[in-house]
């Protein structure tokens, strides 16, 4: 498996491109990402995704937006919030909050009061758009193999008007989706993924890939275990999205370790967006 740089004369093998969660998130990361994403998008006529990526987008982006809004209401000052994030939060356990503050909190205005008001309005706008950020910017319909309840639920409003994103809290005794049926329908593909992971040398397996193998092994015995979000569904998220994409011949992702294996099993071309813009976009095409 080898990557090549995306060149001007690259011709994709399909007209459709599947976007995983990392690409939806990267759309909010600024011009170094935007331009490269646009370059790949321009190669395809149809760009879509899985409804399940909406949940992941919520867990990554909307959860941070909600946190910043809550803290802005507490501090009543953008300057103080940035001070708190940069100097009080422990980097190891709050790395997502710190990283996303660069993308979602911007200083714009004549004084701190105006900057704070503008930051709140901007975050509110993002929360109100919610998971539609994923759906409305893709060609529809989205793949919906799991019929995830939380993807259709999106952002909710509290009694006091506060906008909240709640991470899924699912239990097998309260089935709200078709994930177990989806797994059963695609048992063969999930088994192939597990076999491919198990064949990898230990040194090249990421923690996430090991998790995929473990969860798939358990689900092959009883697919209902996936209905527990924390121990099942969440740990298999990227693999679920990948299997939902199997009708697509091209995948676009920023996660190299997992997507490299998953696209290889599914026979998809892999467009990789490295975090470092100097590396451009990498492509691994499917061998005929």
């Amino acid at each position, binding site marked *: 498996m080898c990557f090549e740089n995306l060149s001007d004369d690259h011709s994709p093998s399909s007209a459709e491109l599947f976007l995983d969660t990392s690409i939806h998130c990267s759309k909010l990361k600024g011009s170094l990402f935007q331009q490269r994403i646009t370059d790949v998008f321009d190669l395809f006529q149809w760009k879509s995704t899985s409804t399940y990526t909406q949940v992941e987008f919520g867990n990554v982006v909307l959860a941070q937006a909600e946190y910043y809004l809550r803290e802005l209401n507490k501090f009543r000052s953008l300057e103080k919030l940035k001070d708190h994030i940069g100097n009080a939060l422990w980097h190891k356990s709050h790395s997502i909050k710190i990283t996303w503050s660069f993308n979602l909190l911007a200083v714009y205005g004549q004084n701190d009061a105006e900057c704070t008001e503008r930051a709140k309005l901007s975050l509110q706008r993002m929360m109100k758009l919610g998971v539609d950020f994923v759906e409305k910017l893709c060609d529809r319909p989205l793949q919906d193999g799991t019929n995830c309840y939380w993807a259709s639920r999106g952002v909710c409003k509290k009694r006091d008007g506060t906008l909240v994103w709640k991470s899924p809290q*699912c239990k097998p005794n309260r089935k709200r989706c078709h994930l177990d049926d989806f797994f059963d329908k695609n048992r063969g593909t999930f088994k192939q993924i597990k076999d491919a992971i198990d064949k990898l040398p230990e040194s090249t397996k990421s923690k996430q890939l090991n998790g995929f193998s473990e969860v798939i092994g358990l689900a092959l015995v009883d697919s209902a275990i996936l209905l527990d979000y924390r121990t099942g569904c969440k740990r298999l998220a990227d693999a679920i999205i990948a299997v939902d994409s199997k009708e697509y011949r091209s995948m676009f992702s920023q996660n190299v370790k997992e997507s490299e294996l998953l696209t290889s099993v599914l026979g998809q071309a892999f467009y990789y967006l490295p975090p470092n813009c100097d590396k451009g976009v990498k492509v691994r095409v499917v061998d005929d």
Partner: protein
Amino acid sequence: MSDDPLGSESTTAVPRHNGQSFVASGGVSGGGVSGDTYASSLVTAGTRSTGAMPLQPTRGKRTPSKSFEVIPKVKHTCSALFATCLDNLDLALDHNEGFFLRSNAIEQVKDTLSELWNVRSQREEPFREVINMLQGIFAQRTVNDFTTDKLNCLRSAFKRLHENPVYDDATANEITVKLLNGGIDVFRELE
């Protein structure tokens, strides 16, 4: 019930789309008489204890904003200012080769948006969100950043604002999506 995210006391009421408020009884759904306990394998959209969604998502719903009375004079002022923005965007579109004319027209749009921002306290929250978003788009951009496609996209957003007398979250979402689909990064412009 730790697995019932909708039954928590702090998140129990949302405006329904008929304008009424609905308060879910978190205590009941979490108690022993709930249908959830006796029919756990039954699949429904919400809890069986109430037969309805305890917490209605905001998504796809045209929920009314908090009642906010906008005085006619302010409405008229905003309408006139949006018309000015449209005129200037037309001017910019008509002079895609004339750098100075296009640049002046875009500066005029920025100034008019500042006037709209100044009346924000007399307008609805979605209105404030949209004006803030539009100002962000223009904030640190030069004339060269505005291609004809992007100007056309902005024009259609301003047209929607001009034609729309009521600003709610659904309208603001529609405009946000329109701009994002036009290649305008509305959440990253405020640097």
